[in-house]
């Protein structure tokens, strides 16, 4: 089936070349980082995780896209999702690829990566995160590929795939839960030390993943003969609406606990994010952008008129995606380190090489996504 990725229109090739340029630039920047050390990033002794880990966290969320189409389709027999489960699964593959790459570029000693397997350490959440992420990647590749292959041949997919599909549903929940546990179990990082961290991760994942999926479905529809179907997009947009509302509600809960209890250490990170702390407020504009985008998204999604209109739905999805990106892919990780253990504010901003590497990783993910979608869409076109 893979050969379908090799033949395509001029535009398809141009797009691949465009992505490859960024992959190449990112790779060059990574070589630079590799030979100079993480000093080329903006990370510091105090903010020891930055853009990479924040992006990793956000894309674990995007990977949830799969489960939000697979679960209704297989468990609740929502037929309209049948056409797009493959899009969800392949989006999950691409996002988990992005996650793993972000972990690798963040390591100080990437060549020792295998130490995690050589010296398995069950008390470390990172060890479990590695297992669930790789497992999720594997599940989605195997399921997606086999179901697609069966569709091409016009037969039912092999029966052994079914248990894998059922496994993939709780597994998707596990990748968020375990990733949230990376943060939620650390003493002394008050912003992260919250019992609803995993719930927040799930909610924002079910908003950002499906919203990206809707946008991708529109793109697929525009550039190919495959139509994911209006009903599927309607259903997805309902999911996004609920998930977005719950996400915002959860962020609000954090505010209540911090400010009603009035415990300084619980308020600090939120103050830093939204109004600035001790005169430092690099992230304040970004967080207000999050607020505005989130409000705009909710306004557009709650109104059935705008939700069902293709144009406004697209805008709403863009708003959801970027608001969640700001909240989780930027604020959440960085603010956990502010103030530092000495109650001092040491700010963080990513450096140019750091951003170049991040662009490279995104481009790699998009390359994987493009190729997988190309294969899937070609098969769908043939079958139709």
């Amino acid at each position: 089936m893979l050969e379908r990725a090799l033949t395509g229109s001029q535009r398809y090739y141009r797009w691949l070349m465009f992505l490859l340029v960024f992959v190449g630039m990112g790779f060059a920047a990574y070589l630079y980082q590799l030979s100079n050390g993480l000093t080329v990033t903006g990370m510091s002794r105090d903010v020891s995780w930055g853009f990479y880990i924040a992006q990793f966290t956000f894309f674990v969320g995007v990977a949830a896209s799969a489960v939000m189409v697979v679960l209704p389709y297989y468990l609740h027999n929502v037929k309209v999702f049948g056409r797009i489960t493959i899009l969800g699964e392949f989006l999950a593959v691409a996002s988990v690829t992005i996650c793993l790459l972000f972990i690798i570029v963040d390591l100080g000693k990437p060549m020792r990566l295998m130490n995690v397997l050589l010296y398995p350490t069950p008390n470390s959440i990172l060890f479990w995160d590695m297992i669930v992420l790789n497992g999720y990647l594997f599940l989605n590749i195997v399921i997606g590929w086999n179901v697609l292959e069966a569709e091409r041949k016009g037969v039912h997919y092999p029966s052994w795939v079914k248990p894998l599909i059922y496994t993939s549903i709780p597994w998707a929940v596990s990748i968020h839960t375990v990733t949230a546990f990376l943060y939620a179990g650390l003493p002394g990082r008050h912003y992260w030390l919250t019992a609803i961290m995993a719930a927040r991760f799930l909610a924002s994942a079910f908003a950002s993943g499906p919203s990206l999926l809707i946008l991708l479905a529109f793109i697929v529809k525009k550039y190919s003969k495959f139509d994911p179907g209006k009903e599927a997009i309607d259903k997805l947009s309902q999911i996004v609406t609920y998930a977005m509302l719950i996400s915002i509600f959860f962020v609000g809960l954090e505010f209540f606990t911090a400010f009603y209890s009035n415990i300084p250490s619980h308020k600090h990170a939120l103050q830093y994010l939204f109004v600035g702390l001790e005169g430092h407020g690099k992230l304040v504009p970004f967080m207000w952008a999050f607020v505005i985008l989130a409000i705009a998204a909710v306004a557009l999604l709650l109104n059935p008129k705008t939700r069902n209109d293709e144009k406004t739905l697209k805008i709403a999805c863009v708003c959801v995606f970027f608001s969640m990106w700001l909240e989780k892919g930027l604020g959440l990780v960085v603010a956990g380190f502010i103030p530092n253990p000495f109650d001092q504010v040491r700010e963080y901003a990513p450096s140019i090489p750091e951003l170049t590497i991040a662009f490279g990783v995104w481009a790699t993910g998009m390359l994987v996504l493009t190729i997988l979608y190309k294969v899937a869409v070609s098969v769908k076109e043939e079958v139709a």
Partner: protein
Amino acid sequence: MESNRRSFLKVSGICALGLGALPVADALAKAALPNFLANPKELAGKKWAMVVDMKKCWEKSEKGCHDCINACHVFHNVPDIGTVKEEVKWIWQEHYENTFPGQTNEFNVENIKDKPFMNLCNHCTNPPCVRVCPTKATFKRADGIVMMDYHRCIGCRFCMAGCPYGSRSFNFRDPRPYIKTELNPTFPTRERGVVEKCNFCAERLAEGLMPSCVESCKNGALAFGDLEDPKSTVRKLLASHYTIVRKPELGTGPNVYYII
């Protein structure tokens, strides 16, 4: 890399041998097993701890005494990177409100204002850094010392997020050029990409010596000893003084105590 490859070979070798051949391999290993012993001069303890008597520390030199810091950093080849961003430190000074955030009130800061407090790894009883490390590169020894295995660390910095005391430093760049003093040829340096921190001078205890900070303090402000030994100096100090530790509410069980 060398060790990884070797461990990999070891693992695959064992797999290849199969379970049937295991007893043979075992017997061979036993016959060839060399003897590894602890240094007979070693100071043995069950739970090492330190008591810092801040009054004694300030007695002679209110500010500006860096004897313990210098001794430790010179002995352990700790680099002086020169920026706040990438600073590497094993033992250093902070103000009261930074050392004990959340334990200040408007007035107690007044009389200890600008006085230095010594900060170092607390060799916690329940160390979160050990709990989160995915490779056991940070581990706790039977005598309580929280050790780093620099050959194994992958530089994920999870331990830095886990430590609530900011005791850990990451080598953002090659530290060698930043060691301004003469290298101590008896102790290694670290390399780019690993995390480092105070090791309670495990290498000196093995030789029967006190930690270098303790040894270098001319005011005797630092006391080091075994908490499980009721006759140790630390136990005597703890019994006769009111002491505090940093962030006790986190349940980490810090083993560096302060007399103020």
